[in-house]
């Protein structure tokens, strides 16, 4: 059976060049980068080369890049780090953030901070003017994601960053889904802190980064040694960081051409589905959207049964609503976008990447209509 992976926003296969780059750091270059002897220096050299590669890719200074264990840690460090430096105050975020930001803000509320969760429009876009209106004299941070992981909508970071600058408020953006997929100009966007991750761009899991603009006032969240310029204690994941650096080097080379190719495949998939399956709608912005992201709702079918049905055909997609412990959790993103519940329950996300071919898309178009049609035929809802 053909196997087609359409879940690249969840994770990506490690690029072969990345695997090769990491191997020496499991073996002869195994040292602790904090050690001053030769073994340690070799490990540090590899790690610092990766930092330089990433800094150059972002056009920032290498001292402004800190490594962490993942996007979630980067988000926690950014939001709690700024909040901790101020001690109290108000945070502006949106209702469609990743849980790593949403729940961090909620946890800070329990500690006495205030938070405003901005609404989004039908496409998942935050209105920069809403950011301006939400400002308070005690606002200490604006944290709005660069693009949404579920529907792929690219937020107006430049306009939001401008407002943040006008008022001297730090601007953090979770760019985990955009970094290495589309160009990001941290200077034009006035970004002070930016989370980005390795395993979304064909690097290894367990490593990510946080860009911290020089002069940004923050405290560390985890205490210990003086790693990462005292911003993140703990021995660095050297092989992972070296692989991350390689992954960024490959992205710098391939990003533009791949984005174009993946966008074409995604559009072909959507056009094909529209032509073959009735009662389907697109979620997310039709144009301001990540190249590989296609989120759609199939009415009168439950997300998970489509995911399972496609899985049995060798196709990996993800469900836009999750049924956990018997409680429906229609995606908070789709709810914020105002997608009606009977549609939101049938949301499916297909995210394409470098390994996908035109044949993959044709295969999905061959098997998907039958999966949906069969599930609809079982349902009392669509015939009631």
């Amino acid at each position: 059976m053909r196997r087609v992976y359409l879940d690249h926003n969840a994770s990506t296969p490690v690029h072969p060049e990345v695997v090769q780059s990491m191997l020496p750091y499991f073996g002869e270059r195994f040292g602790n980068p904090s050690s001053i002897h030769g073994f340690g220096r070799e490990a540090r050299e590899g790690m610092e080369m990766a930092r330089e590669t990433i800094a150059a890719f972002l056009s920032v200074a290498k001292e402004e890049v800190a490594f962490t264990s993942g996007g979630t840690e980067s988000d926690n460090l950014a939001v709690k780090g700024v909040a901790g430096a101020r001690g109290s105050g108000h945070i502006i975020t949106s209702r469609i953030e990743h849980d790593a930001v949403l729940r961090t803000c909620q946890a800070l509320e329990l500690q006495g901070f205030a938070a405003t969760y901005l609404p989004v429009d039908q496409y998942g876009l935050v209105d920069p003017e809403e950011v301006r209106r939400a400002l308070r004299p005690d606002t200490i941070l604006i944290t709005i994601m660069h693009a949404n992981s579920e529907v792929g909508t690219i937020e107006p970071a430049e306009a939001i960053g401008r407002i943040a600058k006008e008022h001297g408020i730090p601007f953090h953006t979770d760019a985990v889904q955009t970094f290495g997929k589309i160009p990001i100009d941290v200077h034009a966007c006035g970004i002070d802190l930016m989370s980005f991750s390795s395993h979304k761009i064909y690097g290894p899991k367990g490593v990510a980064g946080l860009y911290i603009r020089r002069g940004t006032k923050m405290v560390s969240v985890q205490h210990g040694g003086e790693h990462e310029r005292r911003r993140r204690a703990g021995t660095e994941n050297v092989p992972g960081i070296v692989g991350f650096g390689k992954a960024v080097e490959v992205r710098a080379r391939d990003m533009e051409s791949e984005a174009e190719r993946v966008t074409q495949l995604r559009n072909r998939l959507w056009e094909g589905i529209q032509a073959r399956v009735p009662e389907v709608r697109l979620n997310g912005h039709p144009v301001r959207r990540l190249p590989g992201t296609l989120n759609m709702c199939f009415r009168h079918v439950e997300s998970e049964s489509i995911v399972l049905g496609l899985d049995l055909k060798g196709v990996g997609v993800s469900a836009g609503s999750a049924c956990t412990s018997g409680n429906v959790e229609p995606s908070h993103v789709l709810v914020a976008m105002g997608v009606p519940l009977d549609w939101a329950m049938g949301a499916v996300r297909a995210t394409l990447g470098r390994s996908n071919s035109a044949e993959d898309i044709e295969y999905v178009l061959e098997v998907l209509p039958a999966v949906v049609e069969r599930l609809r035929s079982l349902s009392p809802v669509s015939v009631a």
Partner: protein
Amino acid sequence: MNYSATLINHFRNPRNVGMMRNPDGVGEGEFEGCGDVVRFYLRVQAGRATEVRFQTYGCGPTIAAASAGSELATGLEVEQLLGLSADSVEAAVDGLPEERRHAAEVVVRALNAAARDYLRRQEGWVSPRGGIQHV
């Protein structure tokens, strides 16, 4: 999510799917937590369910549990349907992950509702859509 081979088999090839003309009993179970709906139709002869059919809107485990439940219910006395447990439906799909146990519960509620609808009809009162039991 790890599902048993039996569950996958029922999901792929659900038994007894579809509507029934002029059933002797109809019942729905609805799991309000996640919107899953299962509807069972019963054909009853001499107090036994001789034919059981279902329709469902739900996740894979709910579809599979409804299929397995229809097999379990076929041949049982109506009184036995009222006593059917979620555990027996779960066992019929070789187990459910903890967070999908509602699949067996919603199936049992729907079968119970269909059995009660049959009994009400016997008493001369017919509900247009059968019984509906929310879980």
